[in-house]
């Protein structure tokens, strides 16, 4: 075991963790909006909108994240027409390709989490709002959404942790995130065990933080 290598690679890996965190936070923000949008579609009676939202979540939950990244990065890059459009400004960059893939993926899971949360809201809450003459819009924003978020916290916490680990796939499209830099260091030192132990430790620490944050939020917003 090369402890010197573990110590010297630690600051480099820590630096790369910033890239991982950026990828994670941007994907989660976009993913939350996408998820909310599709969760609401799923609750609609309109069969077309409903099936469309269902199809989206089915496709993105039913295929590996790695395949999704490859299709968006290498696949779309092969379409010559696309390269002449404005879309290419975004798709040219591996960074945005990764974020698009992550956001669409986590969006699909988030939509399912939120949908089930919406559906478990006791009708009494909504009826209470209606009996007070509150408009449907206000009921949705002030009653349904806050309760749904509270209900979905444990499941969503898991999704954040899964997504955090998922960002390691960004290294497959040339990004130097935590895994990317770990692989880079290994490519010159040929010592995978040491470097991956340090990288794994950093991932574990991030999980620890996220886990406890969610636990705190659950307690803070808990109700009986």
């Amino acid at each position, binding site marked *: 075991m090369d402890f010197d290598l573990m110590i010297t690679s630690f600051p480099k890996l820590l630096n790369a963790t910033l890239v991982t965190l950026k990828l994670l936070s941007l994907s989660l923000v976009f993913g939350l909006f996408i998820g909310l949008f599709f969760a609401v579609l799923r609750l609609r009676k309109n069969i077309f909108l409903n099936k469309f939202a269902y199809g989206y979540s089915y496709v993105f939950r039913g295929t590996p994240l790695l395949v999704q990244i490859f299709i968006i990065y*290498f696949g779309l890059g092969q379409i010559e027409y696309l390269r002449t459009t404005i879309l290419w400004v975004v798709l*040219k960059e591996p960074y945005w390709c990764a974020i698009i893939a992550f956001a669409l993926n986590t969006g699909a899971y988030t939509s399912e989490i939120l949908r089930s949360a919406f559906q478990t809201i006791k009708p009494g809450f909504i009826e209470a709002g209606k009996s007070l003459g509150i408009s449907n819009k206000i009921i949705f924003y002030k009653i349904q959404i806050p309760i749904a978020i509270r209900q979905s916290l444990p499941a969503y916490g898991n999704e954040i942790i899964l997504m955090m680990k998922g960002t390691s796939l960004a290294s497959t499209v*040339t990004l130097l995130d935590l895994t990317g830099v770990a692989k880079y260091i290994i490519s*010159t030192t*040929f010592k*995978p065990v040491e470097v991956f132990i340090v990288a794994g430790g950093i991932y574990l620490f991030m999980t620890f933080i996220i886990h406890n944050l969610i636990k705190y939020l659950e307690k803070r917003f808990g109700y009986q």
Partner: protein
Amino acid sequence: MIKLKKFGLGLLISLFLSFTANAGSIKIGTEGAYPPWNSKDASGALIGFEVELAEELCKIMGHDCTIVEQDWDGMIPALVGRKFDAIMAGMSITAERKKTINFSDGYADEVASLAVMKGSKNEGLKTMSAINLSEISADEQATLDVLTKAFKGKTIGVQTATIHQNFLESGLMGKVTVRTYKTQDEVNLDLEAGRIDAALAAAVAFTDYAEKSGKAVVLTGPTFAGGDFGNGVGVGIRKSDQKLLNDFNRAIDKARDEGIISKLAIKWFGFDASM
């Protein structure tokens, strides 16, 4: 319980037997994604110069060989970790790699080259046709200066953990953004897509790709050898396996003398890349 013990013992014995049965055989690791050195045919079987050369060398050594696939970026760790006993994967002999593993004598050599898409500003650069970085002459320095100017601030793609990556990071070509890929295929795809301005790899890797894909990939600038580009391609072997190293060296000698290496090189490269 007794049955279980018997089963366990049987398992141990069969394991032991399978190990001893393999005593005379060696495993050779290759990438299968770097034509014409090594690649795969449509059915997924390994083919290429090194696959056929490995068979010939094993015949000479009298070893029973299996060729196994391994991703390039894990090649040396896999050898050290005893996943296989030798590397034949277009791996150049470099000082950096020699710190970790041994190399046999070189069996083939090739030059590296930059490639761009047809129509690029850097197509047909006016430079020497070949430079050797072992000792850089004034003319060679002038060529490096031309390259430095032409590729200033550009993004160049390479396969990760290669001599090509080492060269770009050495600064001899000035400050370029290096983007590293897991396989050469991915480098080619992104070169064609225009995500990178140029790519650096074995010249044959580009000509082979251009020929098979019909894409307008063209070589530009000089061909590179020496220095960071190493001293030919050899068989990588664990430092502890001195005997296997000697076996390979003798076999390579014999194959060279009998013209086997030249013949295979001409078949796969279209020219005699043997050494």
